[in-house]
């Protein structure tokens, strides 16, 4: 504002300080504390004081097959889920963008899954995919399956079942954001493309897609980060099984820390995870920052 005096600076400080204080307590300090814990042996509920062991916890991670496996499972889950959600949601956004009656109401119904408590969605999918009485098996029999499909206990199917439940919740989110981005493209852009003699495909590749690019980035980064941290569906549907087939990094940290009660190792894993997420998130933040500067 025009008046930039010392009083103003004090007001600004008083306005921002409470938020920074909360974030200091719940974000910055815990991160430093995680670094500290990760350099110690630290067992939950045992009276022995933590002992400094330097980088041992990190070195152990390199030899830990379960840790390596969890990175691979996370990578698989995030990739499959985000690709499925993005392609479906993107295509559906175009369909919902058609000028046809009734689509507005259908759109409102379509986005309902976004707000469902993830744990409740895990619960319903756990029920639907049940081997013995689940509705999905009923459909499978209807479509000619000769024996029960083991959606949650088969080595290769289990992770796809998680993707199914995740995509159920988040494909509507991709659709919603891409739809809003499509709506924000003014009509004259398409008219100009038509006058320049661009065909439908050319218009899509050379006009529509570039205009959607920032929305696409935002959606992809949000989905990658959130799929990476997802834990509720695993908690309810597979608990990392069968045989580690759905043990993602998030689940592994949770189970090392609070099921095996080995906080030191869990903290080392957590630090690795925070670093990975920070790198991905920087893509998002950089883009927003770049967008604001211009």
């Amino acid at each position, binding site marked *: 504002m025009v008046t930039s005096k010392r009083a103003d600076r004090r007001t600004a400080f008083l306005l921002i300080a409470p938020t920074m204080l909360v974030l200091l307590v*719940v974000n910055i300090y815990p991160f430093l504390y995680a670094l500290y814990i990760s350099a110690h042996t630290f067992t939950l509920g045992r009276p022995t004081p933590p002992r400094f062991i330097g980088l041992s916890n990190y070195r152990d991670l390199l030899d830990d097959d379960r840790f390596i496996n969890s990175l691979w499972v996370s990578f698989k889950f995030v990739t499959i889920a985000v690709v499925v959600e993005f392609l479906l949601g993107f295509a559906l956004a175009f369909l919902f963008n058609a000028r046809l009656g009734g689509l507005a109401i259908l759109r409102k119904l379509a986005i309902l899954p976004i707000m469902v408590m993830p744990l409740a969605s895990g619960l319903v999918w756990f*029920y639907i995919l049940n081997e013995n009485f689940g509705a999905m098996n009923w459909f499978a029999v209807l479509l000619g399956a000769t024996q029960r499909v083991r959606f949650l206990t088969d080595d290769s199917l289990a992770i796809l079942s998680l993707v199914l439940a995740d995509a*159920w919740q988040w494909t509507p989110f991709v659709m919603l954001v891409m739809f809003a981005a499509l709506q924000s493209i003014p009509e004259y852009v398409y008219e100009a493309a038509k006058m320049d003699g661009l065909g439908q495909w050319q218009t899509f590749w050379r006009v529509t897609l570039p205009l959607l690019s920032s929305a696409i980035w935002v959606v992809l980064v949000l989905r990658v980060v959130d799929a990476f941290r997802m834990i509720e569906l695993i908690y309810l549907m597979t608990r990392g099984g069968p045989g580690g087939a759905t043990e993602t990094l998030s689940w592994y940290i949770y189970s090392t820390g609070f099921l095996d009660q080995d906080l030191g190792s869990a903290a080392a894993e957590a630090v690795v995870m925070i670093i990975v997420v920070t790198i991905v998130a920087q893509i998002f933040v950089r883009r927003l920052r770049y967008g604001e500067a211009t």
Partner: protein
Amino acid sequence: MATTKEARLRSSGNLRRGTFAIYLAVCLFVGFGLFPLYMMITTSLKTDLQTFEWPPVWIFTPTFQSYHNALFVFGGRSADHYLLNSIVVTLSSSALAVFLGAMAAYGLARFRFSGNRDIAFYILSTRFAPPVGFIVPIYLMVQRSGLLDSQLALIIVYTSMNLSFVTWILRGFFLEIPIEIEEAALVDGYTRWQVFLRVALPLVKPGLAATVILSAIFSWNEFLFASILAPGDAATIPVYLAGFSASMNIDWGEYMAVGTMAVLPIMIFTLALQRHLVRGLTFGAVR
């Protein structure tokens, strides 16, 4: 003549087929989206036996027995205790987050000082912090301060997690208000705080509504911190729900009844939010 007419007929046939295909795809998608919700609600209305019958029972006489069991039958605490916990934690943490976040957002949007943008982007970046990465240190901090199994611990953690997007979204809203309105108020003798409370805040009401609702949804749905920090008496509804899955004989009807009660209030919120949903969910990057 005949050929053009034929071509027009053919293209209108294509158009009709195209329209039909769009409706078909969209309805399949909506049906897929609604099916699990349908299963949850109908299962909550079945009798105990019907919930795990094979083949699944599609037509039945609804009963409210499961709701009755969840709410009124004694045997430990009933669902209403945990629903109440959820309501307390949700209301406090979203009110706090929006109040503090609005202050910070206004400070960031309206005052120039060095590091302003760095602070704004730092606050945004906390949205990406993976909760499971912070759970170990936060657990130990809460344990040390004797706040395990208390609503206060959850309220503080949720407030901080909501602050990132609340601050960011409201900063966008404040930046959109023409500055002249506030300058005029200053000339009229308002203090800075009065300008903030009486002039600026009322102008961003839609933003406040959107952030309150998004914070409420987040706090209501959060499971990970709740399960670790408040596993007992202070447990919120997702933790209570998770407890069912640990028992050997799952009471599906009651399980789904609690699930339905946990999910329906949020659905109603969602419908109210529609207009600002995208802006809120993407930090104003997409409107």
